[in-house]
């Protein structure tokens, strides 16, 4: 047996410190990937979470590729932060950075919006008339918030007269907080809901209802208030097991849920919102069918968060790349839901909100989608087939009050897919899930933008 005689000394101490420093310096070894040599022209339309995250990965995989990013917007928005801004927990600047701050060198950024995509000629034309040819196209335009579809509403009303619009952007989210803060001081009728189209982060309308409820309770005005949630169909959440949980929470929080209510207009002067309630049929006990005809419902509110229908931007709608037999009037990109590759144009991919797949319109989904498009795109450049598959992963830290959330994660099959099974329960209101939403999500998102996660 070796006699180990440790005699601490100053020299030993400095040796130890030096060793620790060396370990710190060399502990992080870069993961080297084989670069693929190519002259391919790759165009990415859109520099949001999807386009930026992808371009930063492509430059790590492709050498000499001509990569062009087309987007006229100078500001990059961290959209998951909008809810926190609208809850008075973060300033508007929390969600704003510069598009150019995230783009790697060696990539051409055309600072203009795409006006036309011609998949036959393989060409994107910008609003300024610049034509950019491509061998491979990634459509990552995001979606369009169709404010005009809500009659009587305009964005300049946000922040006044009990009008909120969390989705509209960081400044509008801050103005929404101003309106919500004023409303919760006195209480009254709070009206929430969601559009009947596909939408980004379907949990956000619920979160904001819960947050408003929380402020009402903290300020002692909940007793004198009513919280109404007007759902577009018969459910509150598309995943059945989560839907049941949310319904239980609605009961606990004493929310008034109205179903099959589709927002059509708003009268900001009288504070009335109008909803279309579609025709419904019911089978009676005597086996006859009674039909309730379509009607218009009016709900009077003191505070509301307006969420408009969401659709593909015009450039996608007019490109011939959208689904023709699904999501009529919404025009999402016709892609395979596992590979995100276009059905008719195999050199075209859809990434992020614009992808015509069930579920997946969240930043967390983008994080899972990027490696899939990267894999198939790099494989295509090499003349082979990729193997990565997107399973529909979508994540929603469903805030139920300031300080608590449920970390809901699921896939196409409505299966819950917890990141930390057995540790962080997806249907439990937890502090740790709140910590993730409030502090861990943005750095994770930033790492994704840099192509590092």
């Amino acid at each position, binding site marked *: 047996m070796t006699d180990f005689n440790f005699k*601490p*000394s*100053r020299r*030993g*101490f400095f040796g*130890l*410190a030096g060793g620790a420093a060396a370990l710190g310096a060399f*502990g*992080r070894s870069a993961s080297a990937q084989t670069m693929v040599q190519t002259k391919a022209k790759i165009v990415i339309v859109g520099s949001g979470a999807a386009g930026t995250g992808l371009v930063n990965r492509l430059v790590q995989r492709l050498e000499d590729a001509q990569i062009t990013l087309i987007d006229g917007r100078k500001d990059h928005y961290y959209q998951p932060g909008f809810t926190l801004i609208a809850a008075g*927990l973060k300033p508007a600047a929390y969600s704003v950075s510069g598009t150019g701050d995230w783009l790697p060198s060696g990539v051409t950024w055309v600072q203009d919006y795409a006006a036309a995509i011609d998949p036959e000629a393989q060409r994107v034309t910008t609003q300024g008339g610049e034509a950019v040819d491509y061998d491979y196209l990634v459509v990552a335009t995001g979606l369009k918030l169709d404010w005009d579809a809500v009659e009587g509403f305009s964005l300049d009303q946000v922040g006044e007269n009990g009008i909120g619009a969390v989705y509209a952007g960081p400044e509008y989210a801050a103005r929404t907080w101003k309106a919500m803060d004023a409303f919760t001081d006195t209480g009254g009728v709070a009206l929430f809901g969601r559009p009947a189209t596909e939408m980004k982060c379907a949990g956000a309308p619920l979160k904001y209802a819960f947050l408003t409820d929380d402020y009402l309770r903290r300020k002692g005005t909940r007793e004198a208030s009513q919280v109404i949630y007007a759902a577009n169909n018969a459910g509150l959440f598309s995943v059945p097991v989560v839907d049941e949980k949310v319904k239980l929470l609605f009961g606990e929080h004493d929310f008034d849920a109205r179903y099959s209510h589709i927002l059509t207009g708003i009268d900001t002067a009288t504070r009335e919102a109008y909803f279309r309630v579609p025709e419904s049929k019911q089978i009676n006990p005597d086996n006859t069918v009674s039909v309730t005809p379509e009607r218009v419902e009016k709900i009077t509110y003191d505070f509301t968060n307006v969420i408009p229908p969401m659709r593909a931007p015009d450039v996608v709608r007019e490109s011939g790349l959208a689904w023709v037999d699904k999501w009529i009037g919404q025009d999402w990109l016709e892609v395979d839901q596992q590979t995100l590759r276009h059905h008719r144009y195999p050199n075209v991919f859809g990434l992020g909100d614009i992808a015509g797949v069930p579920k997946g319109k969240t930043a967390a989904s983008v*994080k*899972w989608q990027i*490696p899939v498009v990267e894999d198939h795109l790099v494989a295509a450049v090499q003349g082979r087939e990729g193997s990565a598959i997107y399973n529909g992963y979508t994540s929603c830290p469903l805030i139920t*009050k*300031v*300080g*608590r959330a449920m970390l809901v994660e699921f896939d196409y099959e409505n299966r819950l897919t917890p*990141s930390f099974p057995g*540790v*962080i*329960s997806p249907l*439990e*209101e*937890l*502090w*740790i899930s*709140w*910590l993730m939403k*409030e*502090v*861990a999500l*943005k*750095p*994770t998102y*930033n*790492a994704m933008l840099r192509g*590092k*996660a």
Partner: protein
Amino acid sequence: MQQLTLETLIAVFEEIFGRVLFWSMVGAAVLITAGYLYVLIRDRHLSARKFLLAQMFMPFGAVAAVVFVQWATHSGLSDIGGPIDWIVLLGVAGAGAIGSAILVYTIQSLTKGRQRAAHMEGAK
């Protein structure tokens, strides 16, 4: 989460406390740890008397750490929802307790200077 790297972890902490505060805290932690190791090596023993006083500061350190984390994350004790929350809370409290004990021990050792075990025994 798909990958949890050291870089992501550092970015998370920068986000929680702000870059300046986080790296100031890292700097403080490194200095205190270095000071602790220095006095251990200098004195060549662990003083039970100093350690006792240091231990008495542990509850304060635990509470301070919890209050600090809750302040930084807009949350409170009423938000604790399940076992994992208690584990995280106890972890934070534990880290605060150990950190404060090391801090108090190091301060005592540095301010009172080098003291030999024999000298301390004789003083009893």
